[in-house]
């Protein structure tokens, strides 16, 4: 039991990271029906910006995260304007292929300029302490990742539910034409969605750096895929679904590697996904109860 709880705790921080990435997938899908395959790579760029902020500029981790978020928000908006917007009225497969192109572009541009070698987040970026609570070991890393992810998710929920911009995002995702008739600027709203999604991915990237210590230009691929799966698991386009899906993926992954073999963790995680989707093809949060963004 103790062991099980410990695994759950470990899974929570990983799950929080997946959830943050999954949110960007789901928000972008909700608003323009595009699976943004470059999303994991935006996370990677965020991880690098965080790395340079800490290692070169010597900022603390919060400033590093903020810098990564702002830069990636801009990057996300530029990608949308340059690569996706011209394709908005073309077929979805064309946009999807473009997204894969953008993904490769980000990966190999990073490799070109920064070499394919991994970099290690400096130890002083985040001092690790272990706390022992009721027989469980909690690392300051896990606490930091979990708490900051949850804070970001609460802020996101607030924006989506309460602010005029958030309501406009929901309106655009539900009915673009009707949204225009309200005076909502659809292009601007789509940009804001990319900005927010990319900023969340950047935060997740910095968290990845802290969580795994090392980063590399291809680090976005597998977590990006898993976060995408998490978004589908929760019901693509549904914000709370992405959060829950992310946590489910993270916890599942740590449980499998804790009890079975870490060799099987991805296979089992994806196996569970297939089973859930066989039973409920629209994902855990379905269409009827869910809220699209």
């Amino acid at each position, binding site marked *: 039991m103790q062991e099980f709880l410990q695994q759950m705790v470990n899974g929570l921080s990983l799950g929080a990271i997946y959830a943050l990435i999954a949110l960007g997938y789901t928000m972008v899908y909700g608003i323009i029906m595009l699976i943004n395959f470059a999303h994991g790579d935006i996370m990677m760029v965020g991880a690098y910006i965080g790395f340079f902020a800490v290692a070169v500029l010597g900022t603390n981790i919060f400033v590093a995260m903020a810098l990564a978020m702002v830069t990636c928000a801009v990057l996300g908006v530029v990608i949308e304007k340059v690569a996706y917007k011209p394709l908005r009225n073309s077929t979805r497969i064309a946009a999807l292929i473009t997204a894969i192109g953008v993904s490769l572009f980000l990966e190999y541009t990073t490799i070109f300029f920064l070499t394919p070698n991994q970099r290690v987040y400096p130890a002083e970026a985040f001092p690790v302490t272990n706390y022992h609570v009721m027989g469980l070991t909690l690392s300051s890393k896990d606490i930091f990742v979990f708490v900051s992810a949850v804070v970001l998710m609460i802020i996101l929920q607030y924006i989506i539910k309460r602010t*005029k911009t958030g309501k406009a995002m929901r309106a655009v995702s539900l009915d673009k034409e009707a949204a225009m008739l309200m005076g909502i600027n659809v292009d601007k709203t789509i940009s804001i969605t990319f900005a927010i999604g990319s900023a969340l991915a950047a935060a997740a990237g910095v968290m990845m750096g802290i969580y795994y210590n090392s980063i590399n230009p291809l680090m976005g691929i597998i977590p990006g895929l898993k976060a995408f799966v998490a978004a589908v698991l929760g019901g693509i386009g549904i914000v709370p679904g992405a959060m829950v899906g992310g946590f489910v993926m993270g916890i599942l992954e740590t449980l499998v590697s804790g009890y079975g073999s870490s060799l099987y963790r991805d296979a089992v995680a994806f196996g569970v996904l297939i089973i859930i989707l066989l039973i409920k093809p629209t994902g855990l949060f379905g269409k009827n109860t869910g809220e699209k963004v």
Partner: protein
Amino acid sequence: MLEVQEIDVYYGAIHALKKLSISVEEGSIVTLIGANGAGKTTTLKTISGLLRPRSGSIKFKNQELTNVPPEKIVGLGICHVPEGRRVFPSMTVMENLEMGAYLRKDKKQIAKDLETVFARFPRLKERQKQLAGTLSGGEQQMLAIGRALMANPQLLLMDEPSMGLAPLLVKEIFEIIKDINARGTTILLVEQNANMALSIADKAYVIETGEIVLQGTAQELMNSEQVKKAYLGG
């Protein structure tokens, strides 16, 4: 107030509006009637900027609209209640109404207009926390109208507001349209229910396959043999 002059609108190769001209005088109710597929919705969408005419001009209070994006057209005072209501289903009634006032910043006046909308549609007030998608058809139509009124429009474009409603409700909706007009909003009303539309309108146009084939005062059209035969059931 609104001058649509010889607009041509295409969907790809389909020539949907052919040199169509209509004019709407300030303070009046003008109706555009016609059969399915005649081009009524296309006309309204072109006025509100969702579609662009290939040629011709649309002037609102002497300002050319054909290059103005739809969200700016709303800001100029034209609001469009679209065909099929198009409320935001997974947003609450209240949020839908807030979206109607999206461009406005005058909080006090917005609050007042909200009270006016609630006074006109008490149902909406009772159901303000309910998701719009769970409202009945009639309630959704009221919400769509209320949402448009929240923009405080000078010109209201209405696309078949009576569609799919029970006769009693149709009457109520037309009463409401008359009342909105009486309080100073100009109305361009698209309808298949020609009887009802002509009974409240000042002026009317008949559209067939993208062309205006008949126009006149509502009274004239009501007495026209052609209209009687084609649109008023004999």
